[in-house]
């Protein structure tokens, strides 16, 4: 497997609403996990429903808290350029906010887009 430096492979699935991208992304994640891969699934959709495809019951899926907004901290470097950095290391974020799903895919929910104050 090629790709990034230490062997991890980041696959993004995109498409129009209703195209079936969530079914493909979620089923793909589970198939890979059933083969023994360590899989993290990120629901980046503002209308999240990846949890159901990953096999979580609806009631449980609705209780998943999205990643807190303040996980990103704005930094200004000496040249005055502003950027966002993560407050915690990614593996810490996964440990803290990741939700276990039936096939051991770890789910992270980015959350519904609430444009008020979102910049």
């Amino acid at each position: 497997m090629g790709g990034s430096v230490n062997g991890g492979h980041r696959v993004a699935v995109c498409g129009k609403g209703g195209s079936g991208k969530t079914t493909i992304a979620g089923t793909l994640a589970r198939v890979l996990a059933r083969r023994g891969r360590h899989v993290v699934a990120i629901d980046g959709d503002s209308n999240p429903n990846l949890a159901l495809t990953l096999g979580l019951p609806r009631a449980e899926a609705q209780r998943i808290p999205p990643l807190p907004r303040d996980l990103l901290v704005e930094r200004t470097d000496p040249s005055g350029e502003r950027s966002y950095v993560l407050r915690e290391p990614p593996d810490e974020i996964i440990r803290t906010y990741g939700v276990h799903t039936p096939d051991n895919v770890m789910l992270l929910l980015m959350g519904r887009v609430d444009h008020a104050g979102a910049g």
Partner: protein
Amino acid sequence: MCRTHATVRRVLGELVAGGDDMTVVDMEAGLEHLSRGTTRASDTMLVVAEPYFKSLETARRAYELAKELGIPRVFVVANKSRGPRDEEAIRTFCERNHLDLLAAVSFDDTVLEAELGGAAVLDVNAQASSVMQIQRLADLITAL
């Protein structure tokens, strides 16, 4: 920049450093996240397209944007194809527009059944045609 998108990119960009084997991201519907560069941190982008012109056109634009952003591997995955005629239409569109078609997942009633029941297709029927085809897609992705 919308903070949700910034978070996706950050987490995605650094996840690999955490030693995770595979990361699969269900992106925001539409093209907005692409123009914002949210997906720049991906190694592979799968653009899901249905066999009708509007969907294929949207897929073409997403594909081209992803290429422009420098994502190393970009593929079309056809979905909900209802037979040879649909598959041919998708193949022709991809050839004409120089889009790399990786796999096709057929229309599958089990997916509808699962959606109606608020369940996952894999749990409704692990032998469903769509599941088998996604398993082949997984083979292809693992082999990249």
